[in-house]
């Protein structure tokens, strides 16, 4: 299973670079524009996106072992809505022991910080990811695509509105 995944990932990587090479000037322009317009529309600077990405890695690596460098966090246009797309190449799911250890470590940290409300949400994400791993077919070379929670969509929409209001 792990080997198959790895094989698919490698093949997928080469396929990706191939298509990138043959990308036309028009496609490059469209893709670059989409990214830059998302940033223009949401006020999320590249620095903030990078910070968000890092925090995601930190959070999710408690539950799964993943390819941290390949994790992609992008804003995408979905019709009139702006969606936050998170793509996580999972190397393997951590076993119960490891998750427990990570969580305990987290708990001790959180006791210091005096905030523990986010724990429930994290468990939800954990379940989602594990489900995805089980459902992932062998031939699927794509990394798991996870559509981020609705509230994150909402918040980016709100930011959009805020921006327009201010203007």
């Amino acid at each position, binding site marked *: 299973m792990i080997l198959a995944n790895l094989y698919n990932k490698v093949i997928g990587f080469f396929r990706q670079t191939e298509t990138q090479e043959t990308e036309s*000037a*028009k496609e490059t322009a469209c893709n670059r*524009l989409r990214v830059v317009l998302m940033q223009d529309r949401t006020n999320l600077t590249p620095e903030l996106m990078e910070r968000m990405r890092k925090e995601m890695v930190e959070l999710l690596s408690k539950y799964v072992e993943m390819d941290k460098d390949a994790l992609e966090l992008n804003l995408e246009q979905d019709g009139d809505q702006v969606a936050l797309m998170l793509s996580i190449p999972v190397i393997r799911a951590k076993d119960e022991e490891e998750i427990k250890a990570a969580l305990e470590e987290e708990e001790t940290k959180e006791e210091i910080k005096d905030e523990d409300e986010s724990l429930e949400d994290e468990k939800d994400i954990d379940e989602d990811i594990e489900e995805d791993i089980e459902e992932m077919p062998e031939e699927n070379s794509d990394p798991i695509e996870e559509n981020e929670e609705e509230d994150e969509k909402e918040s980016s929409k709100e930011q959009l509105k805020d921006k327009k209001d201010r*203007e």
Partner: protein
Amino acid sequence: MSGRVIVITSGKGGVGKTTTNANIGTALARAGKKVVMIDTDLGLRNLDLLLGLENRIVYTIVDVVEERCKLKQALVKDKKNPNLCLLAAAQTRDKTAVTEEQLKDICEKLKKDFDFILVDCPAGIEQGFQNAVAGASEAIVVTTPEMSAVRDADRIIGLLEAKEEIKSYKLLLNRVRPNLIKSNDMMSVDDVVEILSAELIGIIPEDTGIITSTNKGEPIVNDEKSLAGKAYNNVARRIIGEDVPFLNLEEPQGVMAKIKKFFSGLTGKEK
């Protein structure tokens, strides 16, 4: 009469706002509508040049605002079309010479006598833009299939959406080059429309005739043979409310190809 006030804007400079203004205005006047164009690009006026009216300007919008003349005195009639008037910008003043309120007031007064008031907006998103938009209830956003122009158009659309007075805005895609789109070197009309998610009102092909028409001070819509002129005429008809299909821009390419083929055939025979 209660005329429609349409602002023609783009954000980026050099995409063809003024050319669009001159041509849509002329086309509307040719269709029998009473049209007045207001150049709000104070200090950088050009609409008069495109219309060939630069020698007829006595008073400008600043003279009207500062009450050196009546509004009607400042309206310059077009050489050919009595339906068409221009209220020129002052060349010696800057954007602060006219306020939003004053422009709104001028538009309100002109609405009584004209079917269409076309406001030529300066480039940028500063006070000049705010002034130009102040009196308008509709907008045409001019852009080209280039990244910087599309990005600026997106910004302008954001600003227009925040304005309550602007009831609708439409996209005009200028300087489209069908052969570059065909070879996937340029964003297509569909790409731009999808990225900006705005309604399209016109597709104007790149046309070298625009340069000669500008040089002559004669809008290209007066040239029946020009494809860009035809496209601008169609935009005017759509503004009036007619349902006009978009031009098939690949056709002239076909004609050119045929001519080339024809000539190459001739030379072939000579040999």
